[in-house]
C-alpha cells in the first residue's frame, strides 16, 4: 500500500457489486500486474487480495469464502480477507489491494499511470 501511494494510486471502477456473487469472488486482470481476487462476504463487505495463496500460490479466488476469510482450494490454508494474513497455525501473508464500494460500484485502488 505504501509503495502504491508513492506511485499515486487511482481508483478504478471494475464492476457493480452484484457482479460478484455473495460468498464468492471475481478475478481482475490489470495490465502488467498479478491477477487480483475481489471477494464479497455475506455481509456485503468487499475485499481485494492478490490472487496468490501465501502457501504455494494457489488461486484464492477459487476458494470458499466464510466470514471475513477464504479457504484456499489447494491445501486449505485459511487467509483473512481484512489483512491478507494466513490464519494460525499457518504463517504467511498476501498483499492486500485497496477497495471501495460507492453507489453499487466496486473500485480498486491501483497504481496510476500504467
Amino acid at each position, binding site marked *: 500500500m505504501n509503495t502504491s501511494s508513492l506511485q499515486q494510486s487511482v481508483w478504478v471502477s*471494475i464492476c457493480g457489486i452484484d457482479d460478484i*456473487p455473495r460468498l464468492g469472488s471475481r478475478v*481482475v*486482470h490489470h495490465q502488467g500486474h498479478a491477477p487480483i481476487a*475481489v471477494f464479497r*462476504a455475506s455481509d456485503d463487505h468487499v475485499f481485494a487480495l492478490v490472487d496468490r495463496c501465501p502457501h504455494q500460490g494457489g*488461486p484464492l479466488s477459487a476458494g*470458499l469464502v*466464510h466470514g471475513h476469510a477464504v479457504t484456499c*482450494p489447494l491445501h486449505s490454508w485459511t487467509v483473512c480477507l481484512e489483512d491478507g494474513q494466513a490464519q494460525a497455525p499457518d504463517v504467511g501473508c498476501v498483499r492486500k489491494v485497496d477497495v471501495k464500494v460507492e453507489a453499487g460500484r466496486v473500485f480498486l485502488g491501483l497504481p496510476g499511470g500504467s
Partner: protein
Amino acid sequence: MKKMKLVVVGNGMAGIRTIEELLKLDTSLYDITVFGSEPHPNYNRILLSPVLTGEQTLEDIILNDRSWYEEHGITLHMNSTVTRINRARKEVMTDDGKTARYDRLLLATGSKPFMLPVPGTDLDGVVTFRDIGDVNRMIEAAGRLKRAVVIGGGLLGLEAANGLAMRGMQVSVVHLGASLLDRQLDGAAAALLQGSLHERGLEFLMERQTEAILGNGQGAVRGIRFRDGGELETDLVVMAVGIRPNTDLADAAGIHTDRGVVVNDTLQTYDPSIYAVGECVSHRGMAYGLVAPLFEQAKVAANHLALHGIGRYGGSTTSTKLKVTGIDVFSAGEFMGGADTEAITLADPVGGVYKKLVIRDDRLIGACLYGDTVDGAWYFRLIREAKSIGELRENLMFGESSIGDTGHSGENSIAGMPDTTEICGCNGVCKGTIVKAIREKGLFTVDEVKKHTKAASSCGSCTGLVEQILINCIGGAADIKPKSEKAICACADYTHGELRKAIREQHLTSIPETMRFLEWRSPDGCATCRPALNYYLMSTWPGEARDDTQSRLINERAHANIQKDGTYSVVPRMWGGVTSPSELRRIADVADKYHVPMVKVTGGQRIDLLGIRKEDLPAVWKDLDMPSGHAYGKSLRTVKTCVGKEFCRFGTQDSTGMGIALEKDLVGMWSPHKVKLAVSGCPRNCAESGIKDIGIIAVDSGWELYVGGNGGIKTEVAQFFVKVQTHDDVLEYAGAFLQLYREEAFYLERTCHYLSRVGLEHAKARVVDDAANRAELYARLRFAISFEKDPWAERVEQASARREFENLTA
C-alpha cells in the same frame, strides 16, 4: 446487558478446559474469575513425569500463559486458595482475604494425593507427586540425596521411580499387591514390566505393607519399616498410593459429596448454581483420574454454563499408558475379563511382548498390551465403537496393518520410528514435527494435530498413525473418537448423524436456516461444514432445497478439477468407455485449439484434457459438445466395462450395454463421496469389479452385485451383495443401494466406510430382503436425479452461470 459472574475454583486442567469450551460458545455472557492454589498458570499436569526425568522443562508444559487470561479478560488469582463458600450470599472467600460474588460457581479442585495413615508422614523428605511444587522438591532432593523409596507401584509411582532413577538415585518401589499396575495390567503383563524396570536398575519389594516412616531424630527421613518387621534405609520417601477427590471445600459448604462432588449428567451439583468438573467429581458413582473424561465433562459443563442446555455427559471409557520412555504398556476398557467374556492372548516372553484382547458377544471390550502397543489406538477405537468385530476377529491380534493397507503397510510401528520418518505423505510432515507440536502446544486430538501440523489433513490415510503418536506422547489423555461421535467441525457441536437427523426432522431446507436453528458459532460456517450441509440439504429435500454453489468446493463449482498450478482438467463423459471417431476428432481439435499441454487416458476409460485455463472452460465445453464426465464431483464418476459377450469369447452377457444403461440411469447423481461402478462380462473380471463401490459380474444365469469396494488409499475388496436375473433388476438393486448410501452416509464417507459403520447386513435388509423398501428407495433416487441437468451445457447456455469463469479487467 450486565454480565453474570462466573467464579472458578481450581486453576487446573478441568477448570480451564471448561472455560476454553465456554469461550468458544459465548465470550460475552460472563465476567470470569479464577482462583488457584498453585503459584502457576494452568499447565499440563500429565507431563510432570517427563519434567521429572528431565526430558521436558516446566516452560514446555504451560498450557495457558498469563497473557491468555488477560486476552480473554479473565481475572486470575494465583497462589490463592478458596477456603469457604457462602451459598446463601453466593460468595467465596480465600485464605489471603479476598472475596468474590458469583452467579455460577465451577468447582474444579482436582484431587489430593492419599497419605498412608502411618507415623512419620510429616518428616522432612516425605513427598507426593501431584504438582510443580512436588516435582521441584524431588529434583532438588535428587541432587542432594542418594536413596529413594517410592510407596505404590501404580502409574504415578512407577513414573516417579523412573524419574528419580534417571536423575541418579537408587530407587526401590514398595508395593502392597503381588503385581505392579494392578489396575491397568493383568498378571502376565505386569511380570514382564517388572522385569524390564528391574533391568533398568529399579528394586522391587512386593507384597509389603508399610507400617511407619522412620526419622533420624532431626526431623528428616532415615528409613521405613514394614508390617513384617523388616526395615529399609532411605533418604527420600515418595508417597504414591492413590488419590482422593478433593472435596474439602464442597463438604464444608454442605454440597452433597460421596467420594467426590456428586453431579448429574449436566455436571451440576446439588446446588443448581454450582457446577463441578474433573477429578473432584463423582458422576454415576465414578470418579475419574485421567484427562480424557474430564475433557468430555468440560464440554458438557460449558454447554450448560453457556445456557445452551443440550449436552449430556454419560460417562467415559478410558485407556491408560505408562509414560516411561522405552517401555510400552497400554490398556483400555475391561481388560481383566470375566465369566461372560473370552480372551485372545499372545505371549512372547523372550521377545518381551504380551497382548490380551477381551471379547464379549462378538465385541471387543478390553485390551491389555505390553511391549508392542502400536495397535493400542486402533483397539481403543474398536472398543469405543462397540461394533461387531465379525470378520476382523481372525486378524484382530495382528493389528490394523494386517487388514489390508496398501498405503502404509510395513511402516506401522510408531514407537520405533526415528523422528525423521515421514508420517503424512501428502503434506510432508515427519514424526518429530508432530511429537514436537503435541508436546509444545499441548495438543490432545487428531484435529488439533491436523490444524497445527497439517498431518492427516489431506487424504487422511495417516490418521491412524497420528492417533498412535498421540497415544505415545500423552497416553490416555489422547482424545480419540470415532467419526460418528465427533462434531462436524469447530463451528458447531453436532455430529454428522445429528445434523442429518435435525435436517430431516425439522424440515430444514437452506443453509442459513439450518445454521440459525442449530446455533452455528460462525456467521457462514467454514470450508468443512458448508459443503457437508449443502449435500445433506440437497439429498434430504431434492427439488426443495436449492443447491448453494458458493458452498461447493471449487471442483464442483467450476465443474472441472483444479490442478496444482491453478489450471483445470476436463474429462468428457464417454458412456461405458465407448467413444466414436467424431468424438475423438472433436477432442483432438479442442486440444489443438486451446494448446492443451497433456491429453491422457484415465483409469476410468476416458480421456482427460489437462492444463486448461479457467476462463477457457465454457468455450472448451461448447467445442467438445459432450456431456460432463463429473470427474471432479462427489457424484457418479464412471461405469467401467469390459467388452463382454459381443466380442469376447468368454463373455456371458452384454457387459458394455449394461454399463452404459447404468451410467445413463445414474448420471447427475450427487453423493456423499465419489461413486465408481464397473461391469465385467464374466468372472475373469477385466473391468476390476472387485474394487468398485458397486461391482457387477455377469454369469451365465444372471448378474452378481458386489458393494463397498475401493481401490483408493486403502484397498477394499467389494463384498457380495445379491445375485439378480434381469437387466432391470440390476438397475433397481444398484440404484436402491446407492440411494440408501446417499441417505445414510456421512459426507465424505465412501461406501466401504459407510458399510463398515452400519454393517453389510443392514444394507441387505433394507435393499435385498425388503422389496417394497427397495422400490421406494429406487423411486426416491429417480426423483432426486430428475432435477439434474448437464452442468456443462447449462453453463454454456446461461450467461449468469458463466460468471464464475469470466475475468474482469481494470
